[in-house]
């Protein structure tokens, strides 16, 4: 069995195979402030006054964090009120992005995790079947503790060889999406294997799992191992470790091989994630804004990569660099170890934890004709504000080098 078949079989209470429809038990369900209000209305419409497991249900306030508009403050109040009545947990403004906070505190290897946000697949980094759904499916998962899923075919992605200097998890996933396309894994699971993956720290794995959906995938799964154990230990959750590996008989619909030694810093160009180029091919692209953060690259390790390049240097005068920590914990740790000081000394500005500018709500909305290099997972037209703006995606290292030069830059010369 593949990892997907194994986890879904456990949760269906019977052996299920690729292509089957399964109703499975949900271990953790969550929404964010953009999808939560509709989920609550659906729960009410279905006539539920209680929810299945309030302790394993979380309402995150991360998109409008803190709220920039009256309407959104009212939505927050509506969610808080429902949470209070039902006992659902609230992760309030400033505590961080849902996917980062659940990776820190809740997701366990082998879990089924349902989130009303497409980047819920981030949890696959811990060996959990974590997938994004809409508000109605989330409402059902919250109310009944169940979800229906089609057991997906799995694409095996084998990454081998050591990563060159200046190349990270972000470059692996951008390269993969460029190769298989933004619909290359639609309805399917991605399962990551190979020595590069085994040697990749949890932050890099989360970046890759996070962007599985940008290839259309339902889930981006990693076997759980010593690295997973190390992460859970660091989060004070060592008892929650469980080895999750695919069975020897696993059959994959397709296998994609990537030679990590040949990878270069990779950029996704406007307006699609699969429109990728290496930094060598990009030419001169001047930017107005650099954005470091999001569920894709808002972790301490990401900040360390950027800070190493920015230390003792200053941001190009005509641009702005915005840094948004993925969570309260990331913020605190980056403050304690001096990383934040490096950002501020270099001329970057730091916002409160949350999804920040990635969703086009606040904290770095782009104007007409503006260009942004962002570490976020998505670059669709108008995503960060004006439909006439341009979003390029790259690693935290590319972000830092770009901030120094004011144009998309190769980080390798700074490392």
């Amino acid at each position: 069995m593949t990892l997907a078949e194994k986890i879904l079989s456990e949760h269906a209470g019977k052996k299920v195979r690729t292509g089957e429809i399964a109703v499975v038990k949900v271990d953790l369900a969550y929404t964010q402030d953009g999808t939560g209000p509709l989920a609550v209305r659906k729960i009410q419409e279905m006539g539920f006054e209680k929810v299945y497991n309030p302790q394993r249900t979380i309402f995150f306030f991360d998109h409008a964090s803190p709220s920039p508009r009256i309407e959104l403050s009212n939505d927050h109040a509506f969610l808080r009120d429902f949470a209070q009545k039902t006992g659902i947990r609230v992760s309030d403004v400033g505590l961080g992005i849902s996917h980062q906070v659940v990776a820190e505190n809740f997701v366990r290897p082998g879990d089924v995790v349902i989130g009303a946000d497409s980047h819920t697949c981030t949890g696959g980094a811990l060996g959990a079947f974590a997938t994004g759904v809409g508000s109605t499916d989330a409402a059902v998962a919250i109310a009944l503790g169940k979800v229906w899923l089609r057991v997906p075919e799995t694409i095996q992605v084998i990454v081998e060889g050591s990563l060159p200097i200046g190349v990270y998890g972000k470059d692996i996933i951008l390269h993969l999406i460029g190769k298989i396309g933004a619909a290359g894994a639609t309805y399917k699971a991605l399962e990551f294997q190979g020595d590069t993956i085994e040697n990749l720290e949890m932050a890099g794995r989360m970046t890759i799992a996070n962007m599985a959906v940008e290839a259309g995938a339902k889930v981006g799964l990693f076997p759980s191992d010593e690295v997973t154990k190390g992460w859970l230990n660091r989060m004070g959750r060592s008892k929650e470790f469980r080895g999750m590996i695919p069975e020897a008989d696993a059959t994959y619909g397709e296998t994609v091989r990537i030679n990590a030694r040949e990878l270069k810093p990779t950029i996704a160009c406007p307006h699609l994630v699969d429109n990728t180029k290496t930094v060598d091919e990009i030419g001169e692209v001047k930017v107005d804004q650099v954005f470091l953060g999001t569920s894709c690259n808002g972790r301490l390790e990401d900040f360390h990569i950027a800070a190493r390049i920015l230390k003792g240097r200053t941001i190009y005068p005509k641009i702005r660099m915005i840094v948004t920590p993925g969570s309260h914990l990331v913020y605190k740790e980056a403050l304690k170890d001096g990383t934040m000081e490096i950002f501020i000394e270099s001329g970057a500005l730091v916002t409160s934890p949350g999804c920040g500018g990635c969703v086009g709500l606040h904290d770095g909305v782009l104007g007409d004709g503006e260009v942004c290099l962002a570490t976020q997972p998505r670059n669709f037209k108008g995503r960060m504000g004006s439909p006439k703006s341009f979003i390029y995606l790259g690693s935290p290292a590319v972000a830092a080098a770009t901030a120094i030069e004011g144009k998309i830059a190769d980080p390798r010369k700074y490392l």
Partner: protein
Amino acid sequence: MKGKVWKFGDSISTDHIIPGRYFYLRSNLPELSKHILEYERPGFSEKVSSGDFIVAGLNFGLGSSREHAALVIKLNGIQAVLAKSFARIFYRNCFNNGLPAVICNTDRLAEGDEIELLLEEGKIVNYTRNETFPFSVLPPVMKRILSDGGLVEHVKKYKDLKLTE
């Protein structure tokens, strides 16, 4: 019921269908609905009539999980979305709200064509071109959700998920 075709290209994301900048209108659906696909086609909400069809190319609805994308399509009176392929979360969201999302060769449909979707028969009739062609059969689970009137109605009826029997 006959309706008119509104044709779109490939890779129409949920950010195109309902941009994130209108996030604050998500609890005000009538107002939010006015902004449907406005970057692709300014004034679309005023142009479209009840019973019309959105017809697109590959990977329609990619991106964010916002169910509001499927909802604003339904609230604008669109009868069904026809595309060469759909992104999975959007696809589920459509059926959950009782909106058919049909996979077919949309090269056979042009802007303004008068068509009819025969869901039971698995056929699309193009009155403008005077031809009929089949579409990919709906997965049984989606048929079930649709016939119950969406997932909320399904759960109201069974107080459970009864989709695997």
